[in-house]
């Protein structure tokens, strides 16, 4: 008999009546929006806050991602930022009093070419300097840590080594959203579901309210955290973000007895896989290459990914695909998120996370809350503003590592 999953708290959130005005309105009740509300209440004492979502809370990319939490980025700025997020994750379940199955099980990122080996060394050594844990593994060390990996030379892209981040983790995504929602709700934040923000009320360049499908709400501060649909909201507010929305697909197998206690990634042949607590293999791949809001992608992406998975982990051969789904992700030019002020006074945005927004939930919420509360970015997000696309000061993880994050 399988172990039962942890029990949820008996009560999660209120379903409150929408008020006519709030100190802050957060658009988007995903992980980042809910976390922003939580940190506004907890860190800044701002509790007259509404989090408004056009659907059900946590129903966007929070519900669709493959939950990998890591900080092994290439550039100093990114590594610091994401390692701060990882530090926040460490202890978040206790802080939020919710067992969301946070599991620091280690991430192995395989290298298959000389170029990847070189980049891996660069990554590992710079991660360590920036305070993130990282190691380089030989193929034999990969095999010792994770025996299911095929390190034979007889495959087309043999494993030449790997980077390893022991603190990397997975968590139960929905429960993280619910944990933030529960605490925020308990501190007085109103979570308003099935309500769409249809426009913004402005006085000149300053926001004074939002229009919704349930009427107008007066507010002087709005935080936007609507990954996948950032451009649409920005356009309604009267500014543009350098984002393209694209499909990212993920898939699960049926449940298996534990075989894969870590997280395994290969950028070269585009696959990442972990085994979730219930026992299913959770896998993701590359984004489909064109602009898309359909939350569905081409099956050829999945076939290629499964071929890669079977090459790398032969015992996955006769696992079965149970469910494939897609999400709409924000692709920014440098594959680095945008968190900060916007051309409209009082509107702040959190977007551009690509396929990696889940890991940034705590830091994304924390820094957006700070920026809203102080009308200035926090030290952590000062390099991540929208202005960088006008100055050229990109945090170019995409080019530097060749990976979409």
């Amino acid at each position, binding site marked *: 008999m399988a172990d039962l999953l942890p029990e949820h708290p008996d009560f999660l959130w209120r379903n409150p009546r929408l008020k006519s005005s709030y100190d802050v309105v957060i658009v988007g009740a995903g992980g980042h929006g809910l976390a922003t509300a939580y940190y506004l209440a907890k860190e800044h004492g701002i509790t007259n806050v509404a989090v408004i979502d056009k659907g059900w809370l946590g129903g966007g990319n929070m519900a669709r991602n493959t939950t990998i939490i890591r900080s092994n980025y290439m550039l100093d700025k990114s590594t610091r930022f994401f390692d701060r997020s990882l530090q926040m994750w460490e202890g978040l379940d206790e802080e939020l009093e919710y067992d969301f199955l946070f599991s620091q099980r280690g991430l192995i990122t395989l290298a298959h070419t000389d170029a990847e080996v070189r980049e891996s060394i660069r990554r590992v050594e710079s991660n360590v300097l920036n305070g993130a844990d990282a190691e380089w593994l030989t193929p034999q060390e990969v095999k010792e840590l994770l025996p299911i990996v095929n390190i034979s030379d007889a495959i087309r892209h043999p494993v030449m080594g790997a980077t390893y981040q022991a603190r990397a983790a997975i968590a139960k995504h929905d429960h993280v959203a619910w944990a933030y929602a529960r605490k925020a709700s308990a501190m007085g934040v109103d979570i308003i579901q099935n309500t769409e923000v249809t426009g913004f009320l402005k006085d000149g360049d300053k926001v004074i309210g939002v229009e919704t499908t349930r009427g107008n709400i007066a507010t002087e501060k709005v935080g936007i955290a609507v990954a996948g*649909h950032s*451009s*649409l909201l920005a356009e309604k507010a009267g500014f*543009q*973000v*350098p*984002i*393209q*929305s694209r499909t990212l697909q993920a898939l699960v197998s049926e449940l298996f007895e534990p075989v894969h206690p870590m997280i395994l990634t290969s950028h070269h042949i585009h696959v990442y896989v972990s085994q979730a607590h219930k026992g299913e293999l959770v896998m993701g791949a590359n984004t489909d*290459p*064109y*602009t*898309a*809001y*359909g939350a569905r992608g*081409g*099956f*050829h992406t999945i076939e290629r990914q499964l071929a890669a998975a079977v090459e790398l982990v032969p015992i996955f051969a006769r696992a079965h695909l149970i469910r494939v789904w897609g999400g709409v992700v924000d692709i920014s*030019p440098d594959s680095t998120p945008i968190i900060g002020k916007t051309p409209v006074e009082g509107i702040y945005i959190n977007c551009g996370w690509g396929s990696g927004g889940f890991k940034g939930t705590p830091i994304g919420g924390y820094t957006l809350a700070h920026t809203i509360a102080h009308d200035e970015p926090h030290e952590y997000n000062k390099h991540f503003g929208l202005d960088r*696309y*006008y*100055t*050229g000061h990109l945090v170019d993880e995409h080019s530097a590592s060749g990976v979409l994050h």
Partner: protein
Amino acid sequence: MMLIDCPHCGLRDETEFEYGSQAHVPYPQDPQALTNDEWAQWLYFRDNPMGLRAERWVHLTGCRKWFNAVRDTVSYEFKATYPVGTPRPNIPPHHGGIR
């Protein structure tokens, strides 16, 4: 696997094509005449609409010709493909069914 109507080769699988983002965003006549902000805007910002969008595609493993297309970013349906340098055809937003 979208089926894309290459103006020269006919209907082919999407994997034969490469996507080239928004169409009708020409290279500035004189980049030096632009302000930094205007140049940066051209460099990094593209429309990202939900619905019909004019895009550039190239039939990379076929005739290697670039062409423009109006595609619905939700249904993924290609409403029209047309040559580079010709204006965007006027297509009503809700034209035809999902195919």
